[in-house]
């Protein structure tokens, strides 16, 4: 029984087919969920992929988070379902309040498309369960707004609860505390700026994203939250 990964598509989203392709390659089944849908059609996990939902106008994710599908995603997340936001998807999850903080313009005020080293800071999350803490992965980033910010209180919480899932080895965008990805308290909602699906095949230069996608597929097939720390 193949694991079904729902991939949300807003107008302006552009990485949805890449995520579907990468998931399918790993034996799962990617399914597009259009933003006007009100249910997740029974998928085992939801991915909010990269792109420019609603053109990133006003603020990244600002308009997308009001789409009907996002209510379904929020309920799914509240019930412990695995939810991952990649790049623009991370921005949407922050705007939707499923993850704390926000992402603003890169410190260099330039769009950045390059492959960077990302350290796995905890293996306890739906996107890092199959990885080892301390692993350094070569992952592509592709964003203008990847500069994570949050209040000092929020940062303290994230650090105390070990909810910073990924850090840049060499901070490319000014992100607070080198943060590349975080998770919620339940550790079933993860957002990150790097693109695991773009590192899912050696012929593209790196396959380091595979371990993350496998983690998601595993978490999805259990449809349960990893316990403890």
């Amino acid at each position, binding site marked *: 029984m193949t694991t079904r990964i729902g991939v949300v598509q807003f107008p302006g989203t552009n990485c949805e087919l890449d995520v579907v392709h990468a998931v399918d390659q790993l034996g799962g089944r990617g399914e597009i969920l259009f933003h006007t849908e009100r249910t997740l059609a029974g998928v085992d996990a939801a991915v909010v992929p990269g792109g420019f939902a609603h053109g990133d106008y006003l603020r990244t994710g600002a308009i997308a988070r*009001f789409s009907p599908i996002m209510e379904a995603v929020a309920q799914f997340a509240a019930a412990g379902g695995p939810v991952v936001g990649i790049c623009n998807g991370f921005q949407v999850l922050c705007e939707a309040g499923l993850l704390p903080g926000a992402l603003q313009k*890169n410190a*260099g*005020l330039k769009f950045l498309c390059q492959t960077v080293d990302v350290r796995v800071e905890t293996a306890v999350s739906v996107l890092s369960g199959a990885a080892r803490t301390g692993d350094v992965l070569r992952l592509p980033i592709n964003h203008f707004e990847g500069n994570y910010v949050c209040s000092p209180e929020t940062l303290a919480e994230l650090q105390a609860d070990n909810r910073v899932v990924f850090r840049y080895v060499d901070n490319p965008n*000014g992100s607070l505390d080198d943060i590349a990805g975080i998770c919620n308290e339940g550790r079933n909602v993860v957002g990150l700026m790097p693109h695991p699906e773009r590192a899912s095949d050696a012929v593209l230069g790196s396959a380091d994203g595979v371990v993350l996608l496998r983690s998601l597929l595993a978490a999805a097939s259990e449809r349960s939250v990893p316990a403890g720390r």
Partner: protein
Amino acid sequence: MARYEARIDVTHLPGILDPQGATVERALPALGYTNVSRISVGKSIHLVIEAESEAAARSQVDEMCHRLLANPVIEAFEISLSELVP
């Protein structure tokens, strides 16, 4: 029903760094401006709203800012209203 023009000035919350402002500030001396400081770059949103009263208009715009037009996590906003006389 009256029509009001609203100007919303969206700025960064104190303590939240402002990459655009910082970059402009860095650039100015090279252009010969050494007497300028505390630059911040935010958004300015203009819109026209129909409402019973200025108070009604203001409270709706305020709600729109909280929900959509600004992000309270990183941004502050200031609303100024003026009635449009047809």
